[in-house]
């Protein structure tokens, strides 16, 4: 109901990923001494950005699927309420 959670989830992780990867790419490399010399911001930022993108794409796809169903004027199949 209301909203598809994948939309805000996708947007949040796209933004978080973008912030981390930009900061990791442009920031001072000496910061990463404490993280064993690994630029965690950059690498993990890329992973989070990709995850955000995937969630965002999935939420868009289900919106498109719903619109297509409506355009075909096929009523969405009523789901069993379970009992």
């Amino acid at each position, binding site marked *: *109901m*209301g*909203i598809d*959670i994948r939309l*805000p*989830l996708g*947007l*949040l*992780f796209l*933004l*978080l990923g973008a*912030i*981390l990867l930009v*900061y*990791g790419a442009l*920031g001072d490399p000496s*910061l*990463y001494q*404490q*993280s*064993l010399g*690994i630029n*965690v*911001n950059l690498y*993990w*930022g890329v992973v*989070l950005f990709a*995850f955000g993108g995937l969630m965002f794409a999935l939420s868009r796809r289900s919106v498109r699927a719903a619109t297509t169903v409506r355009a075909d004027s096929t009523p969405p199949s009523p*789901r*069993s*309420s*379970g*009992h």
Partner: protein
Amino acid sequence: MTGIDWLILGLYFAFVLGIGVALKGSMKTSTDFFLAGRAIPAWVAGLAFMSANLGAQEVIGMGASGAKYGIATSHFYWIGAIPAMVFVGLFMMPFYYGSRARSVPEYLRLRFDEKTRGLNAISFAIMTIFSSGISMYAIAKLIQTLHVFDGVFQRLGLNSSWIFDFAILISAIVVLIYTFLGGLSSAIYNEVLQFFLIVAGFLPLTYLGLKNVGGWSGLKATLGPSYTHSWAGLSHPDTNRLGVEWFGLVMGLGFVLSFGYWCTDFLVIQRAMAAKSMSAARRTPLIGAFPKMLFPFLVILPGLIAIALPTQPAVPPHARVIVAAEPPGKGIIPMKVDASSGKPMLDKDGKPQLDYDLAVPSMLLHYFPPGMLGLGLTALLASFMSGMAGNVTAFNTVWTYDIYQSYIRPGATDEHYLWMGRTATVFGIALSIAAAYMANRFNNIMDMLQLVFAFVNAPLFATFLLGMFWKRTTGHAAFTGLLAGTAAAAIHHGLTLPAGAVVGIKGGWLAITHNYPSEMAQNFWTAIYAWTTCFIVTIIVSLITRAPDETKLVGLVYSLTPKPEEEPMAWYARPASLAIMVIAGTVLLNIIFW
């Protein structure tokens, strides 16, 4: 915290409040507000089912226990959660969801009678307020300890002793806004966000920590077998770090406490009741069980790593923590310092105590540069806040449906109950604030939670088990059994004392008839006594009271209810298949970490 960390924290707050605002328009009936319109997909409900429990107790407490007890802490997951989650999904959900009860206490009214519901509703309402207060207290304490707001307070010329109060207020306001606007949907959506944030914030932590200590084999070499085995040594309380024997662990934790929580606690069951269909409701706990099975690696391992690292009070310059001024602890875990005297706290042998609750926060500060540090702290705060929101949403539902509608004002319009739900959100949070200040007086969060939990919840599963699977169980019996079980728990606690403890909150307040090797052993046995007493008393009273009318029990009791029809779906998505997969995975993990 630097600018980028604040940016990440701010972004999270914006999304949390944004979700509340976006859902405001969909809250038209009380069902929308209290049960998310019964329209939540299985995977969302499943993640929420697991995350609703992932509050302060879990993230900080499990890391602390990891540092204290080692990998054996994973018993709280592998036998202390998974079997119960599988059981509730496969066998109990057909009655919870199928009866259309709007809450667990309401199921008790349908199955038994009004007084059993009242007892459960009132004790549950008190417990949720208490838990939500403890979450709030934990947030405030953490913010204070990590000096998150110190810079801001200094700049504004405010007294730093207000930080605790300020942190309580801010977390209360944020949770109030989003649960007030979006009800259960808002809480569930935020639990899903929180789940992914915890994974995002903690997975790199475990990776860096393990890499640093030379992987699992390196950890084993540094810490020795007592930290790195979960079952070996459980034949006797003296040969394992938990101080319990296998029977107490399996029966107390694995059966009584675990089933009492995961199968009867409305906080988690509410997530499944909000699912969009019977099959989604049954799959909710099973889907939640998959991440649950793997979470020890995210929340317990950092604790083990924290204790394994070489002791070094080196503080990264950006963290601005005054740990350096304190005496060194063990690993990177600092000593417990008395807030009033500033001196390290000593145990009864005169040895300084470690502040295990700081294991996970210390790990974040140790490994994470600015950026990731913001994400890690945001994940921690998110878990606290959603733990609190979970309690608040369960409280407002039980208050409105099971207390207000039943005893104070029956027969009002649906709009009125929706209004009442929102009002209950406000005063529920106000009461939680009071509970948070009360919690400030106690030290070990987890021990206190377990004590209250053992008294009230331990007998509950006996009542549900008999109620759902033995049609002869009567209302009088359920009520008497619950009271007897709770009384048995209290008496057992009053008669026993864990080794090295002082008479009082730790037990022994009636007389000391038995000494347990550890507090955990005492807790588990309190639960076993409570459950057994409730089980026996309920059976005896059932047999001497008039049998219930069977026609009224259809849909509520196993033998009188037709089997739920399976929706057509792929074999791997069916509840039974999911159950087999998760059990197989859990058995495998137990063997690997034997």
